[in-house]
């Protein structure tokens, strides 16, 4: 058995809304340059875990042509069909058994240019009832959640715009983000195209072409790869029920359960104090207060205070998505894994302009399904 597992290498593409290269080339270039940066070869990797989805790839068994591109030819390999953070979770379990010491985890998609995300999302809806009715979808679920939160906690459209602006500004300083909007302002956000009110276009994450790869290693082999391992000290994943009407979209109990499990593993008693930063998977800006509160990072209903005090800004007491988060780039399937890469960058002091001083412990989050039905949480430490 291996007692501890670390992120020992990570890399993401410069995400774009229209990649100049095909999916296979994007994946190949990324993995090759990660190996190069780390001074390793594919033969240093014991097992390969991909994250992709046949619907978002538009192909049945979509890994058929991508597995040779990551160095897995004639090697041990498998695929998780969910966000890439779940692939990291699986690789973490594989390494814990001691059967493997190293794993390459990769998530990717061409969500910017090859398909319309709302279309592939619509295919997750119950085909007999909700899909033909077309009322409940990822957007409307998020809007219901946002509306409920805003009403209950007096969180205004201006607060939501302010929160969105924080993320856009962080994304502006993130060289990997696809969204660049130096002229963003509260007024412009408030005036952007209404979708499902209170949600507007500016609140939506930026669907992008992109990929993220992470190398995990057991404690035994970690120092061979880096003197800056980022330890995965806690993990948790839980799923909620499907029908949106059956869920409490504000409480997000299942995310709380995932977080509690991860905190317990990591020995964290007071996340508000012990967590230095959060990288969370929001498909819409409005999810940020709900998800961070369910993660126990802020007091329930404190969204307004958090925005006003700047607590979640890079200079705040508990920065949330210093990378800009998925508002900066959402290459579906890679998005949660990018959160792990961004958190690792922060803990290794490699986050450039968005670097948070003295960050030692981070919480990382990914979601799948409408209204974050399935949530995955990692606690990582330097």
């Amino acid at each position, binding site marked *: 058995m291996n007692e501890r597992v670390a992120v020992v290498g990570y890399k993401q593409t410069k995400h774009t809304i229209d990649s100049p290269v095909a999916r296979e080339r994007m994946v190949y270039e990324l993995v090759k340059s990660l190996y190069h940066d780390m001074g390793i*070869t594919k033969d240093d990797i014991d097992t390969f875990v991909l994250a992709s989805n046949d619907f978002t790839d538009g192909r049945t068994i979509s890994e058929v042509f991508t597995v*040779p591109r990551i160095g897995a030819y004639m090697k041990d390999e498998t695929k998780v069909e969910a966000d890439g953070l779940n692939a990291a979770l699986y690789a973490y379990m594989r390494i814990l058994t001691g059967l493997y010491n190293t794993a390459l985890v990769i998530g990717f998609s*061409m969500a910017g*240019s090859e398909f319309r995300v709302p279309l592939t999302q619509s295919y997750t809806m119950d085909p007999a009832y909700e899909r*033909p009715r077309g009322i409940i979808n990822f957007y409307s679920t998020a809007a219901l959640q946002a509306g409920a939160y805003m009403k209950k906690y007096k969180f205004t459209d201006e607060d939501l715009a302010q929160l969105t602006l924080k993320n856009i500004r962080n994304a502006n300083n993130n060289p990997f983000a696809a969204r660049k909007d130096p002229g963003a302002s509260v007024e412009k956000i408030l005036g952007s195209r209404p979708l499902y009110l209170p949600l507007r276009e500016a609140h939506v994450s930026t669907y992008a072409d992109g990929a993220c790869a992470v190398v995990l290693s057991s404690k035994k082999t970690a120092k061979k790869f880096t003197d800056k391992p980022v330890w995965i000290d806690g993990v948790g994943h839980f799923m909620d029920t499907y029908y949106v009407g059956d869920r409490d979209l504000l409480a997000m109990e299942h995310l709380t359960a995932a977080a509690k499990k991860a905190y317990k593993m990591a020995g964290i008693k007071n996340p508000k104090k012990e967590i230095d930063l959060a990288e969370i998977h929001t498909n819409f800006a409005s999810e940020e207060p709900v998800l961070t509160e369910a993660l126990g990072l802020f007091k329930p209903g404190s969204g307004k205070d958090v925005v006003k005090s700047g607590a979640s800004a890079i200079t705040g007491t508990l920065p949330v998505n210093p990378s800009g988060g998925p508002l900066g780039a959402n290459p579906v399937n890679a998005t949660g894994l990018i959160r792990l890469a961004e958190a690792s960058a922060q803990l290794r002091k490699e986050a450039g302009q968005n670097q948070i001083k003295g960050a030692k412990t981070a919480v990382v989050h990914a979601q799948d399904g409408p209204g974050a039905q399935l949530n995955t949480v990692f606690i990582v430490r330097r």
Partner: protein
Amino acid sequence: MTQETRIIESTWDLTAYQFKIEADALSLFVKGLKDRKILGRKCGTCGTVYVPGPTYCRKCLIDIDQVVEVSQEGRLDAFTVSLADVRGKAVDNPFISCTVKLDGSDSFLMGVLEGWTDWRSVKEGMRVKVVWKDVTQGALADLSHFQLI
């Protein structure tokens, strides 16, 4: 208890996708076909010759750019005799699809095999050669078929 079940019609619209495809291997391949050459790429490290040749080696995970021309003769590998259509109806003129390893290549190329009278006498390992269309224009169709030597 009675149960009512209804069937809901729905589609998975693959035309809703715009796919980007890496075209290096096939571009080089069809360019060669115009000049009646079979072109591929060779890995300088492990020596594997890919036809059509992508710009990377999947064994070594490195870029490769050495263009090589391979022989127009080779060895018949696997083959199959199409005797029926998708619905099982016998076809009038059975044909053989085959994979061929051209001399100097590590790849299996697919094509139609001609030059036989009784398909039962066709055997793996037989020698074959490339037969071109009368006019080549830089398209996959330039490579008409493989012929038993």
